[in-house]
């Protein structure tokens, strides 16, 4: 699989990362190096082996259904560039 500059630009756009046009070539090359490495990994025969999802023998930790958090509107909003009447205020987005 080979990534061209157009694909690199699309991935950057989906991730909301601004990439200058002249940097796209290098970015595409980086992608290709990473994917090349993954292609190499895919040569390993993993037939019949369960995918490993963690390195420690742990069960997903659970929590009982109780309200233990929240009630801190001021803190939640404290980093917002703009907040009004308890809401985050953002540039208009309308469908």
């Amino acid at each position, binding site marked *: 699989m080979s990534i061209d500059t157009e694909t690199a630009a699309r991935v950057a756009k*989906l991730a*909301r990362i601004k990439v200058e046009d002249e940097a796209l070539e290098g970015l595409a090359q980086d992608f290709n190096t990473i994917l090349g490495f993954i292609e190499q990994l895919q040569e390993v025969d993993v037939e019949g082996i369960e995918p490993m*999802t*963690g390195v420690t023998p*742990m*069960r*997903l*930790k*659970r*929590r*009982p*259904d*109780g*309200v*233990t*958090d*929240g*009630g*801190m*509107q001021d803190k*939640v*909003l404290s980093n917002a560039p*703009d907040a*009004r*009447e*308890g*809401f*985050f*205020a*953002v*540039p*208009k*987005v*309308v*469908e």
Partner: protein
Amino acid sequence: MLDLTFETPKPKVIAGAKHDWELVIGMEVHAQVASKAKLFSGASTQFGAEPNSNVSFVDSAMPGMLPVINEFCIEQAVRTGLGLKAKINLVSAFDRKNYFYPDLPQGYQISQLYHPLVGEGEIVVDMEPGIARVVRIERIHVEQDAGKSIHDMDPNMSFVDLNRTGVALMEIVSRPDIRGPEEAAAYVAKMRQILRYLGTCDGNMQNGNLRADVNVSVCRPGQYEKYQETQDFSHLGTRCEIKNMNSMRFIQQAIEYEARRQIALLEAGENVVQETRLYDPDKGETRSMRSKEEAHDYRYFPDPDLLPLEIEQAWVDDIAANLPELPDEKKARFVKAFGLSEYDASVLTAELGSAAWFERAVAEGGDGKLVANWVINELFGRLKKDDRSIEDSPVSPAQLGAIVRLIKSDAISGKIAKDLFEIVYTEGGDPEAIVEERGMKQVTDTGAIESAVDEIVAANPDQVEKAKQNPKLAGWFVGQVMKATGGKANPKAVNEIVTAKLGL
């Protein structure tokens, strides 16, 4: 288990300008889990709170915060799966669905694409007595809800409230087995009823706790059957998804409009473009959500913050053992145990509260059929008039049971029973005592009725002559006797005596 038999409804056919067309509909129902806290945080799920007050640092996606799953939410999704006769997957996993929107601070929604918690099930969608559609459920997965954007508070800004962010949703995905707008609405209604019976979702559509995305396509008659045989989607038309519907009426209108739009395109030789659309109830039309087109690449991948969710069969068995009686079973039992019509059984089992009320009244009054008539015709009508729910009915099951006992023992006539019901409804009190105190007892004493008939016969010789020519006029005498006795005479006895006295 008791089962009622039913036939499959005919699919809806829409006549286009050139041909007939059929509809194929699949639904994704988003049901909010009735939990106190959110799926991955300890913040409250309470509706209508101050904006951004039910928000933890996990929900607002502060750096370094990690999700911890709410076990109760998983239990509710398993319960829902069992209620839909679905396969429960003992191992499932969470994935990230990546997109940017102001009400999604994480930049991704935690969902289950590759390994959902619940697999295939089914639901019986009742259309009318004896007619129902079995709709296959493809899967149920557990996911986070997004926040809420408000666009009309300021001309230039959108306001974002994260209270709903991270609340647990069950996304219930059907196969494209629904064949018309009415079936789609009935599907949502049945789903809502089952969820409410199970107690896993309150089904409040107005608050958005139950909403549906509707996938609609059209095809020529015969094509759907080919799809059913082969499960090959190429036999079907291209579908459009109508997002976020939270009203049964709008679901029907939107499907109707969308089907006609697609038919018009196809008959004009154009193609249907697969896209997401929104229904505008004011204009009665669907329109394309262009902004979403580009964002369709969600780049799903397993969430590295969460280990796979492993549950034990014994835990699932325990949940299964504690499932309540579900609507289909309850309805079948009401039909068989009380001799009700399927229609009456459906009405009584629509809400769990009505079904329980009815059963308590039957325990008091005996005769399930008579109790059902009184509950459906008198009680429901009266409650509706006052805009009350069964939960705040002024008449208790014991009181209605007593009224029914009085009717059954011929102590009061049906007409008087209605007056009695109204007294109990408005004033309260013990029906038996009221009947005694107010002299409402039915006159079954034939002597008393006979003398009443004699008086009327003696006072109306002309009518007697006419009645001899035309026996139908006997009804006039019965009416007069009932009037003279204040409605308390046993109508059957009056009829017999009138007929005998007139020599008919």
